[in-house]
Structure formats: structure tokens, C-alpha cells
């Protein structure tokens, strides 16, 4: 039981590390392509293609270059997290009412101030939704990490499959499903929390 708990924590950490890396890479990338729109189509196409590679194939291919171990798993998770994060950040920022941008610019905000004071806060709910999707996907894919020598809840599942031990399989599968559900729930809460009050659906007086 202690093992399972340790594996669950490890699984969560690996998934979070992959998503975290994707955030570090993906958000600046998304912001960059909102400024250089010609790059946007290309970037989106690349992240789209990466997403379609079967996860087993991607793991194996990366293993050739990065070797066995958690580093390969984390990089794989990052790649899969990139698409929802880049796409949501991009559409979140480009979808903002042009009037807000014009107002901010016209009042003398620098590009950075506009980003920090207006674009990111207003796009934040959409960005958060992307992170949520990325996290849940990552938790699922991380169970394959065992195949390339990674840790996490893939180990009991894989071992259970080989010795046909259903309780061992479930001891990995159930916690994996649970943390996916918990993350989904927790991040949904967080998404709501970061939505400014002024942007929530109910608005008593609007003309």
C-alpha cells in the first residue's frame, strides 16, 4: 500500500513536470505567435502533428535519443501537453475584444503591460481550460512510462498484466483514474477562481 502511495505521488509529479515544462515552453510560444501571426499557422500545424503521433511510438522514438528513464517520459508528456496549452493560449489571447486592445494601447500601455494587465487576465480562463486538458491527458499517457524505464503507476499495471494479476492491475489503474478525476475537478475549481468576477456569466444589468 505504501508502495502504491509512493507510485501515485511519483506519477502525479511526472505528469505535472511534463505539463509544467509544456507551460514554460508553450505559453511564451503562444504569445510569440500572437505577435507574429505568420508563424501561427506553422506552429499550430506542428503541434497538431505531434499530437497525432501514437504515444507508444513517440515514447519509443524519443527513447532512442534520450535513453531509458523518466526524462524521456517527461519530454513525451510535454510534447502532448503542448497542443492544448499553445492552442488555448493563442485563441484566448487573439479572441479578446479588439476594443480592449485598442483602449489599452491608446491609453499608453506598453506591449508587456497590455499582456500583463489585460490579455493574460482576460484569456486566463481559456488558458486554464487548456492546462486542465493537458494534465488529464498527461496522467493517462504517463502510465506508459514503465515501458521506457520510467516510474509511476504504469509499473503495477504492467507487471499485473504480465502475471495476469487483476488486483495488481487495479492497484495501479484505480489510483491513476482517481488522480485524473481529482486533477480535473481541482483544476476546474481553480479555473473558476481565476476568472475575474467581472467576467462571470451572470450580469445583473447589461444593456
Amino acid at each position, binding site marked *: 500500500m505504501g508502495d502504491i502511495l509512493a507510485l501515485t505521488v511519483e506519477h502525479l509529479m511526472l505528469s505535472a513536470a511534463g505539463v509544467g515544462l509544456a507551460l514554460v515552453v508553450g505559453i511564451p510560444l503562444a504569445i510569440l505567435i500572437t505577435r507574429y501571426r505568420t508563424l501561427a499557422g506553422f506552429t499550430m500545424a506542428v503541434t497538431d502533428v505531434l499530437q497525432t503521433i501514437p504515444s507508444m511510438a513517440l515514447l519509443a522514438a524519443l527513447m532512442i535519443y534520450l535513453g531509458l528513464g523518466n526524462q524521456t517520459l517527461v519530454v513525451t508528456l510535454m510534447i502532448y501537453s503542448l497542443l492544448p496549452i499553445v492552442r488555448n493560449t493563442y485563441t484566448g489571447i487573439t479572441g479578446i475584444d479588439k476594443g480592449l486592445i485598442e483602449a489599452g494601447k491608446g*491609453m499608453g500601455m506598453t506591449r508587456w503591460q497590455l499582456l500583463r494587465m489585460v490579455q493574460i487576465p482576460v484569456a486566463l480562463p481559456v488558458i486554464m481550460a487548456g492546462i486542465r486538458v493537458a494534465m488529464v491527458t498527461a496522467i493517462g499517457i504517463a502510465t506508459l512510462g514503465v515501458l521506457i524505464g520510467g516510474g509511476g503507476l504504469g509499473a503495477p499495471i504492467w507487471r499485473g498484466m504480465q502475471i495476469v494479476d487483476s488486483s495488481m492491475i487495479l492497484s495501479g489503474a484505480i489510483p491513476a483514474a482517481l488522480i485524473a478525476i481529482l486533477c480535473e475537478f481541482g483544476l476546474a475549481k481553480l479555473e473558476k477562481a481565476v476568472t475575474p468576477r467581472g*467576467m462571470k456569466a451572470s450580469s445583473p444589468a*447589461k*444593456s
Partner: protein
Amino acid sequence: MVKFKNVVKAYENHVAVKNLNLEIPEGELVVLIGPSGCGKTTTLKMVNRLIEPTSGSIFIRDRNVKDLNPVALRREIGYVIQQIGLFPNMTIEQNIDVVPRLLGWPAEKRKRRVYELLEMVGMDPEIYAHRYPNELSGGQQQRIGVLRALAAEPPLILMDEPFGALDPIARESLQDELKNLHSRLNITTIFVTHDMDEALKLADRVVVMNQGEVVQVATPETLLRNPANDFVASFIGKNRLNGDSLQSVVEIMLPDPVTVHPQMGLAEGLALMKRKKVDTVLVVDEQRRLLGSVAVETLDREHKRARTIGEIMNQDPPLTTIRSQASAKEAFDLIIGEKLKYLPVLDENDVLVGLVTRNSMVSALASAVWGDVGE
């Protein structure tokens, strides 16, 4: 305060602004008006460098804006846009004090300023400061939009069709408020609109633009009385007729007054007047240009000495006339104020187009009040 010198803005396949020269004195509220695509918004946005001119210079208080940092420049200029553009993630207070915050004012001073501004437009700060934009009506939102532009006490405000998206009642009350604020604070204001009523109501001076050129710069009064050309006249007319009824003098005149030529004999004239039951006729030449008038008493008095109308016309005091572009109200004022019996309406070539009489005035008024009531 603001000076445009030979300003041109050309795009690849059209010229938005052609060689603009315009000077706006300190404290004036100038309205740029014209049909869409006339270059009025482009002109406005070149002032705070949201658009850069192709050539020419713009000066604010004798500083060429090209030499100023655009970000610093914009913080010195209030900016109000049609889409309102309040930030939904910020409270009303935070929205109003964006520019003071960018300028690094201390928190206490910012708060004082926000409260002062809200009170100025009769919005209780205790109620509104901590609300969010989506909790206000469109009219209230744009009121905040205007306050936001005023927050850092800029010497100049640019307004780009600020009330265009509002309902008529909100628009009216914001116009009143702006007029009020302007006369109180005397901030130089450049206001873009395509609504002539709005322009005439707000402007110290109206700049009429068409196809990238300034067509006329005049006070509302002069613009109405002496439109520079047909374009201005039709732009005034068209827009003035859109609004309430009885906007133009044309609507209250008789379109076909009784006229005579100067060669007409007196007896013939007298018979005509009897037949038409009028006590005065207007004398016109072949082109229907107004020459004068003859009253029935004059005709009666002179019929022994003279033979044609031409010999006796204009014995009465000179005629007061009005241009066909004038407003109905001006005609009313003239007739009532100068105790005229009638007021000939002339177009720009002095051709007689109609006649306003007390009778035609009253029946136009009546039909405005009760709908069409016949002749």
C-alpha cells in the same frame, strides 16, 4: 494646442488623408465629421500615433509628436473609443485609474481622483467603485470610459465616435454631460462622429471632411447658414432630416408661391392677385431669381403712373430672405422676431424655391403635432 501640417496618410491603394492642415486652439472642442471612409478616424489616430502619417507633421503644444515616445505621448492624451473597451477583469475603480497607475501616482491620490471623477458625473463611488463593467448599462459604461480618459488630467482628449453604439437616450445624456464637463474643465477635445446633430450640439468648431480632405471648418452656426458647397449642404440636410420632423426650412415652406415677371402689366397683376387671393406677389426673372415684391396696396396706389410691375417693385422695405439649407427654426425665429409676413426661400443661386408664410408655418407645425391635417 494641436497643429496638423501637410499631413498625408496613404495606404497601398488609397489615400486616407490628403494634405491636412488644421489648427486646434487650446480648450476647443472640435468635431471631425464626414461619411465613413472620409479620413476622420485616421486623422484622430495620428494624433496619438496609433497610426503614423505617411508625410507631414503633427504638433502638440509645438512638440512634434514624431519626436515623442508613443507610450508616454498616449498617457498624456485621453482616449475614448466607440467599443468603450472597459477591461472586464478590473473594477470600475481600477478601470478609471489605469493611466494614473501607469504613471505611478501614489495609491491615495489615485483613489481620491477616482472618487472625485465618479462624483462629478453623479455616480456614487461607494456604490460603483467596486463594481465590474458588466454590472453597468451601456450608457454608464461609456460614462466610465470618459472618466477613464479624464483620470490623469490630460490636456487633450481624443474621442472616436464615443456615443455611436449607445441608445438614443443614453447618447443624449452623455452628450449633455460631455458638454458640461468640457465647459467646466476646458480640455481640448477632438471628437469624431458621423452624426451631424451630435456635431452641431457639441462642437465649438466643426471640421467637415470628405474623401480625405477638409471641406469646411466652421462653427455650427456658420456651417448651417453658409455651407461651403453642395456636399456640406447635403450632408447637413440629409442628416438633419433624419432626425425629428421640421428640421429644414424646406419642410415648412409653400413650394409654389405666386410669382410675376417684371414686364407684366399692372392690371394683369392685380387680376392675378385677386384670383390667387394673395396680397403680395414675388417678382422673379426668367431664371426664377428673386428681384423683389409688390404688395397689393402699392399696385393700387401706383396704377395710374406706372404700366409694368417692374416699375413699381421694391418700393417696400427690402425683402428678408432665407437660404434653403437653413433650419426651420431659423425661419421661425426670423418671422416671429422680425414680424415678417412672409419669408422667401432661395437656393445658393438666389433662385426662388419657396415661401414661408405664417400660414405655412402654422400648418407645418400642426402636421408635426397632429400628423398630416391636409392643406
